[in-house]
């Protein structure tokens, strides 16, 4: 059986894609632009697009702190992964090294906890 039987299907895909792209590309040029308040509303769910506060809608700084802490602790996993994969081969030495590594991370965690980095308010 030859693949040539599928050529029409490929052609259909190409046609569909071209039509989609064409419609999206042409709409801003030919379509009417009439303002309507309802158009700006969120559809069924989502955040109401309210006027942004002065300075352009910023998140509270708490998010930033949490995100930073997440990155730090998240990236440590990178070393746990290869270790876990070759745990059997590395044996006790690898285990002890990894415990030391986690202790070092835990020191940083303790500091964050004691200095209020984990408090939301």
């Amino acid at each position, binding site marked *: 059986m030859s693949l040539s039987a599928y050529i029409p299907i490929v052609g259909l895909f190409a046609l569909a894609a071209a039509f989609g792209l064409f419609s999206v590309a042409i709409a801003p040029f030919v379509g009417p632009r009439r303002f309507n308040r309802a158009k700006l509303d969120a559809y069924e769910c989502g955040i109401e697009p309210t006027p942004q506060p002065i300075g352009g809608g910023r998140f509270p*700084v708490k998010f930033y702190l949490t995100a930073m802490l997440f990155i730090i602790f*998240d*990236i440590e996993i*990178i070393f746990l992964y290869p270790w876990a994969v070759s745990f059997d081969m590395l044996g006790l030495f690898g285990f002890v090294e990894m415990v030391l590594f986690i202790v070092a991370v835990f020191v940083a965690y303790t500091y964050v906890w004691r200095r209020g980095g984990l408090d939301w308010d």
Partner: protein
Amino acid sequence: MTPMWYIVLATVLFSIGAVGVLIRRNAIVLFMCIELMLNAANLALVTFSRINGTLDGQIMAFFAMVVAAAEVVIGLAIIMLIFRTRRSASVDDANLLKY
């Protein structure tokens, strides 16, 4: 496909980052360009690892990622500090130190 193309891609990404640092003005964007450079280096390391047939390059990419994450945290902390006082992250506004 020869792996050399990945090196070419890495070089292109690195150059985009390097030029970006020189021409952009927002500290965050500058910082993203630096991250792009680091990731280009990671791509080059992993590709060379494949070409050389050793695993060292992949391990090095791990280390580079962790270092980059630490750098992100410190960098964003410093940028935040400045931003909260000046309400601007533009490096052109940071102009108290000169001559």
